[in-house]
């Protein structure tokens, strides 16, 4: 007898259920394998890595690489580990994400609810900016930052991340607000609400899901950025990824792979945290607008 469940799930016998689980578990393994390689090797002493099977679990478990990566490893001339660079990354990423989310929300609001002649062209230009390869803009952006006198500062990096984040946040918010009933805006206008009041009191409170999507997207991209971080940071504003790269990528130094992997996992923790904690809202947010399903 075929079995019908009440949701989207279509008929599935015990056999097909088993098959589905098998496939799902296979992909769980596929997605986890590289992480496994990283985690397993981050707990091995270096001898074991040099000598042996990289896929095996450690024979001797050690926390040393983690301690080193956090606070002892040489990053440049200072043996500080990655510890101090986390703060830099947060100081850059939090304002940049906040700014590009707020501005993206305002842009999406204007582009859907306050359309003016030429709004389509403006949106097209903002959207196309998502696709520019960052290597192109390196030299001219350096010129502009130099001109503004914020080269090598945290402000400079915030500006750059913010500017190149506008495109995607505007896209997300525009698609989300497009489905938002315009009648409500009209009603509020009749009630005498101003442009900003309507935004703050009516749109923003119901933008939760799309804010989650935008923040996840921007946070991940900006946290993981290396190119801008390396090119536009100063000695006291170096972000996490650049420090990690310095730890991992030195060309003629001895490579301590276990420390590298420990450092890499550490560097990824904030983004992993964001994904895992807000994962469920993420799908909901995508549902609510980003994919226009």
């Amino acid at each position: 007898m075929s079995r019908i469940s009440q949701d989207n799930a279509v008929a599935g016998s015990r056999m097909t259920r088993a098959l589905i689980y098998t496939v799902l578990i296979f992909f769980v393994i596929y997605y986890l394998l590289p992480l496994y390689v990283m985690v397993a090797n981050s707990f091995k002493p270096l001898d074991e890595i040099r000598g042996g099977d990289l896929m095996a679990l450690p024979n001797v478990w050690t926390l040393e690489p983690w301690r080193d990566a956090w606070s002892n490893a040489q990053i440049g001339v200072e043996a500080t580990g990655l510890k101090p660079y986390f703060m830099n990354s947060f100081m850059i990423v939090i304002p940049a994400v906040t700014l590009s989310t707020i501005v993206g929300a305002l842009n999406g609001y204007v582009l859907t609810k306050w359309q003016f002649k030429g709004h389509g062209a403006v949106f097209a230009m903002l959207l196309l900016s998502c696709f520019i390869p960052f290597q192109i803009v390196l030299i001219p952006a350096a010129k502009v930052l130099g001109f503004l006198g914020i080269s090598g500062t945290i402000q400079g990096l915030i500006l750059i991340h913010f500017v190149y984040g506008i495109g995607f946040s505007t896209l997300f918010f525009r698609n989300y607000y497009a489905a938002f009933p315009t009648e409500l805006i009209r009603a509020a206008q009749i009630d005498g609400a101003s442009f900003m009041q309507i935004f703050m009191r009516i749109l923003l409170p119901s933008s939760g899901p799309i804010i989650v999507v935008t923040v996840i997207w921007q946070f991940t991209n900006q946290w993981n950025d290396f190119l801008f971080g390396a090119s536009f940071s100063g000695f006291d504003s170096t972000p996490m990824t650049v420090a990690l790269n310095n730890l991992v990528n030195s060309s003629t130094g001895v490579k301590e792979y276990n420390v590298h992997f420990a450092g890499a996992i550490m560097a990824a923790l904030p983004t992993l945290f964001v994904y895992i904690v807000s994962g469920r809202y993420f799908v909901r947010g995508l549902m609510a607008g980003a994919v226009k399903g």
Partner: protein
Amino acid sequence: MKINKFLKTTVAAAAVSAFAGMASADDVEVLHWWTAGGEAAALGVLKDDLASQGVGWQDMPIAGGGGSDAMTVLRARVVAGDAPTAAQMLGFDIKDWAGSTGNLANLNSVAEAEGWDAVVPAALQDFSKHDGNWIAAPVNVHSTNWVWVNKAALDAAGGKAPTSWEELVTVLDAMKANGITPLAHGGQAWQDATIFDAVVLGLGADFYKAAFIDMDEDALGGDMMVEAFNRMAVLRSYVDDNFSGRDWNLASAMVIEGTAGMQMMGDWAKGEFLKAGKTPGEDFVCIRFPGTQGLVTFNSDQFVMFDQGEASDSQMAMASAVMSPAFQSAFNVVKGSVPARTDVPNDAFDDCGKKGMADFAEANAGGGLYGSMAHGHANPAAVKNAIYDVVTAHFNGEYDATEAAEEMVNAVLDAQ
């Protein structure tokens, strides 16, 4: 001398700090790619040295791509009008920078006062000077035509270190017969080119100079070049199939573990052996690439100063500190390279280090010191990378030796 310098610096510092908030103008901001492990720690010696003179150190490390990422960042900084005080540079990059911006600091005063001309080999001065002026302070000299051999594997293959191409092939064959990978190698363009350097040099110093330094068309496409590519193909046959993309450290590990017989790599590889607790002479031996005894291909890390007006006193202090024999010794012992000055005592160095210093001095005296093509000391970056392309393509079987030699001429001409 030092005291004089010290005084000058202090006076400058005092003068500068008279303006509120300008105190950091007396610091040096240093862009470099010695970012991890021992070499970064060794650079700490320099930092401490400067600190003792009242000069602060603002660290700006950018790792990756053998300094290429650091050069990208340097470009961004210079374009932004925010050049660092000093930047680590290699070979032709120094020439390119000197040629294209002209805003490098002139170090003549400290060089003359400390007599750099007398202690730095002419081959290095070629990079440290532009239009006859000192613009860079050389830190070290790596020589790249080394072979690192597992002692046990060598003993099993006859025990005699090869001194000629033919002997090398014999040893490699014996190692192959013993069931190990004779040659540990990582298939990355610069590693391929490092071997190619040695192979070309092994065919004669004149040929090396004509091909790579003078970029003579006949040498680049001639029979000798075909022979060089043939030899590369021979070496390729001793490399295991999984070589491509392998980091050099992992190739070294193969030699350390004895699964491979030898590795052709610059002197920085020694660090890996030492880190693994191996002793030079007992567990492994270091020899020059067979056929290149008495010759050295080098690459030299230098600190270039960017012109920053009144801050130049701290730059002078840094240049002076870099060139001090004590730092040159301390740094190079850790780094595996040899001092850029020829008058540094070798007491602190191990066997391989002493041998390296001796070889370096000998090559310098005998005119056998050449800039390494693979490491950007023979020709400009564009040409170097064009050669990389051909060498790598050949090593991966895209061309045969004749085609490769023809392609070499085209590539080099095209890139100039």
